C-alpha cells in the first residue's frame, strides 16, 4: 500500500517535471471524457423531453385521426355532381362501431375542429374551435382553471356553451371575469363561457402522424352544438370556384383498459376501420405507447452513436498518451537503467510507467468530468450568446433544440472516469513493457 503510494507520488512528480507536455498529452482524454458526459447529457435532455411529450398523450391512449387523402384519390373516388364535395375521414358511425364493438376501449372522445376567430367586443384572437364531448377532458387531461366543462346532457342538448383555453381567456378577457360572458365565434355565433382551462405546455410534433398542438388557443364547445350549427361540410370560396369537403370527425381519442392491451386494441381498431374505409386511406392510428417504445429505441441508438463518437476521441486521446509515453521512455532510458541497477525489477518499471500513464489519463478524465458537469450552464450560456448574435438561427431550429436542457446522466461520470483509467492501462502497457525490457547495462550507458 505504502509502496503503491510512493510509486504514485513519484509518478506525479515525473509528470510535474514537464507540466506543459503533460497537460497537452492529457488534452485528448480530457476532450473525450468531457464529450462523453456532454453528449450523453444532451441526448438525455432531448429524449426525456420527447418522452414527456409522448407520455402527455397518454400511454393508454390510441389516437385515430382523419387524414386528407391526396386530391387525385379524392376526385376519383368522390364522384357526385357539381355541388357535391368530396367526403372522407372518420365518421360518427366509426365512433359508434369502435366504442360498441371493442371491449377493451373504456372511453372515447370524438372531436372536430376548425380555425376560427374569437371576439369579445373589439378584442379578437384566432384560435382553434374544438367540438368535443365531455370525455375529452379525461382523455386529454385538461385541467380546469375556473368554472367547469360542459356535461353529457348539455352536449346532447347542443347548448351554446364554451370553455376557453388559457391563452384565449387572457386575450379576450384581460380585465374581467370571463365566466358567464358571451364570445363571438366566427361571424354568426355566440357562445357563453362556462369555464377556463388551465394553461399547459404545447405538445411537440411526433413523427409525421401528430402535429404539434398548442392547447392554449383552443375553445371547446359541445360536439353536438358544432354539428348542428356548423355541420360537416366546410366550403372555401375561391375566385371563380368553390372548394369544400365533408368530414364528420377529425379525431377520436380512445382510452384503453390497461397499457398491456394497447397494441392489441390498436390492431383491432385498424381492422375494424379498414372494413369501412375501402375507398382510400383517410385515417391514421397513432399509438403513443408505440411512439414511446420507438423513442426509447431512438434514444438508445442516439446514445450508441454518441458513445461511438466519444469513444473515437478517447481512443485518439489514448494514442496521444501512448505516443508521449513512448517518447518519455526513450528520453528516460538512463533513469530506467539507474533504477534497474539500484534493484528495480522489471515489474517495478512496468508499474512505474503504467502508473504515470494512468495518472495522466485520470487527470485528463478528472478535468473532463469537471468540464462535463458544466454542460447545463454552458449550453444555456451558448444558447444565449447565439440568440443575441443571430436570433434567426435559433428561431429556425426545432423547438426541442431551442428548449434544450441537458440532463447529466448520473452513470456517465463514473463511466467516463473508468474509461479514462482503462485507456491509461491499455495505452500505457506497451510503453511500460518497452521500458522494462531494456537491458540495464545498455540503459546505463545511454546518454
Amino acid at each position, binding site marked *: 500500500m505504502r509502496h503503491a503510494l510512493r510509486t504514485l507520488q513519484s509518478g506525479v512528480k515525473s509528470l510535474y517535471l514537464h507540466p506543459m507536455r503533460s497537460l497537452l498529452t492529457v488534452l485528448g482524454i480530457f476532450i473525450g471524457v468531457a464529450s462523453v458526459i456532454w453528449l450523453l447529457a444532451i441526448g438525455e435532455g432531448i429524449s426525456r423531453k420527447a418522452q414527456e411529450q409522448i407520455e402527455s398523450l397518454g400511454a393508454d391512449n390510441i389516437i385515430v385521426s382523419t387524414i386528407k387523402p391526396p386530391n387525385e384519390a379524392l376526385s376519383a373516388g368522390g364522384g357526385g355532381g357539381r355541388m357535391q364535395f368530396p367526403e372522407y375521414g372518420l365518421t360518427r358511425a366509426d365512433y359508434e362501431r369502435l366504442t360498441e364493438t371493442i371491449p377493451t376501449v373504456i372511453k372515447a372522445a370524438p372531436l372536430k375542429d376548425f380555425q376560427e376567430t374569437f371576439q369579445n367586443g373589439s378584442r379578437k384572437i384566432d384560435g382553434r374551435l374544438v367540438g368535443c364531448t365531455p370525455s375529452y377532458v379525461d382523455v386529454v387531461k385538461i385541467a380546469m382553471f375556473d368554472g367547469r366543462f360542459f356535461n353529457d346532457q348539455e352536449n346532447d342538448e347542443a347548448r351554446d356553451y364554451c370553455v376557453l383555453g388559457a391563452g384565449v381567456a387572457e386575450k379576450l378577457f384581460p380585465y374581467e371575469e370571463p365566466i358567464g360572458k358571451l364570445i363571438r365565434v366566427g361571424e354568426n355565433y355566440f357562445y357563453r363561457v362556462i369555464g377556463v382551462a388551465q394553461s399547459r405546455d404545447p405538445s411537440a410534433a411526433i413523427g409525421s402522424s401528430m402535429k404539434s398542438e398548442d392547447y392554449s388557443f383552443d375553445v371547446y364547445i359541445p360536439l353536438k352544438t358544432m354539428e348542428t350549427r356548423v355541420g360537416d361540410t366546410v366550403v372555401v370560396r375561391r375566385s371563380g370556384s368553390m372548394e369544400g369537403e365533408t368530414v364528420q370527425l377529425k379525431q377520436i381519442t380512445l382510452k384503453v383498459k390497461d397499457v398491456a392491451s394497447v397494441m392489441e386494441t390498436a390492431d383491432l381498431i385498424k381492422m375494424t376501420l379498414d372494413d369501412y374505409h375501402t375507398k382510400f386511406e383517410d385515417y391514421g392510428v397513432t399509438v403513443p405507447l408505440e411512439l414511446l417504445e420507438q423513442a426509447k429505441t431512438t434514444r438508445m441508438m442516439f446514445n450508441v452513436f454518441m458513445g461511438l463518437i466519444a469513444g473515437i476521441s478517447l481512443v485518439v486521446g489514448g494514442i496521444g498518451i501512448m505516443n508521449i509515453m513512448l517518447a518519455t521512455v526513450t528520453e528516460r532510458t538512463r533513469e530506467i537503467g539507474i533504477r*534497474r541497477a539500484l534493484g528495480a525489477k522489471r515489474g*517495478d518499471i512496468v508499474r512505474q510507467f503504467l502508473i504515470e500513464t494512468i495518472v495522466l489519463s485520470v487527470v485528463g478524465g478528472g478535468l473532463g468530468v469537471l468540464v462535463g458537469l458544466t454542460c447545463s450552464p454552458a449550453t444555456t450560456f451558448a444558447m444565449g450568446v447565439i440568440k443575441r448574435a443571430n436570433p434567426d438561427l435559433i428561431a429556425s431550429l426545432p423547438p426541442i433544440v431551442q428548449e434544450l436542457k441537458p440532463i447529466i446522466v448520473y452513470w456517465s461520470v463514473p463511466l467516463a472516469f473508468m474509461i479514462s483509467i482503462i485507456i491509461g492501462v491499455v495505452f500505457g502497457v506497451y510503453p511500460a513493457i518497452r521500458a522494462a525490457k531494456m537491458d540495464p547495462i545498455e540503459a546505463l550507458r545511454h546518454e
Partner: protein
Amino acid sequence: MKDYKNKNANPVDESGQFFAAKLTGVKREYVLKGETVYALRGVDLEVPQGDYVAIMGASGSGKSTMLNLLGCLDRPTSGKIWLGRDDVTSLDDDSLSEIRASRIGFVFQSYNLIQQLTVIENIEVPLFYQRNANLRSRKRCVELANLVGLSQRLNHRPTQLSGGQQQRVAIARSLVNDPYFILADEPTGNLDSKTTAEILDLLDELNAQGRTIILVTHEDDVGARSKRIVRLRDGLIESDVRLRPNDPPPKRPDALV
C-alpha cells in the same frame, strides 16, 4: 524471502573467511555481428570483507564486463560468482534485482541520480525497491546524508548540486542498503582534482570503518589509494598486487557506521 537473501546469518565461506564477492573461472563471451568477443577468459578473484580493491586496465581489457558481472547486471558464460555465501551465477532477472537492491552499493562516474527526486529521495531509492522504505529508513537516509556532509541540502534536486555533491549523494545512496560491497565505476572521472581528493578521502574513511569497496578505474593515482590493485589485460588478470594489508574491524559494521 528466498534463502540467498538471508542477510542476518553471518555469511561465511567454507574456509571460515567471508568473501563479499568471489569469482571462479568466470568467462564472458559476446557475439557481436557474428563474431565472438571474449571479454573475460577465465577470471578468479576473491574480495574478502573489508578489502578495498581497485580493478584497473586499459579499455577493452574486460573491466566493464567485470563490473557488470560483479554488479549482478550480467551473467557469466561460464564460471561461478558468489556474493557472500550465495551463488548468484544463474539467478533469474528478478532475483538479480533483489540482490542488487540488497547487497550492492553502486557509485557511477556520472553520479546517476534521478533528476526528479530530491537528495533524500535519491538516497532512499534502493530501499524503495527492497520494499523497505518507511519512516525509520527515512531517518537513516538523513543520517547518511549527514555522513557525506550534505545535511543542508536534503531537499535539493540533483541539478542544484555540484558534481562533487552529487557524487556524495550517490555514495550515501550506495550505503543505504548496508551492502556487501560498494561498486564504484570511475567515481572521480568527472570531477576536478580537489573534489576527486575529497571523494577518495570519503571512500578511505568508509573503508576504514569496515566497508568493502571495489573500484574500477584507469587512473593510477586513484588506484594507488586502494589496498590492492587488480590489473586486467585481454580478459585475464594480469597482476594482483596488495598495497596494504586488509585488516577489517572484527565485526561487520552494523546498519549505520
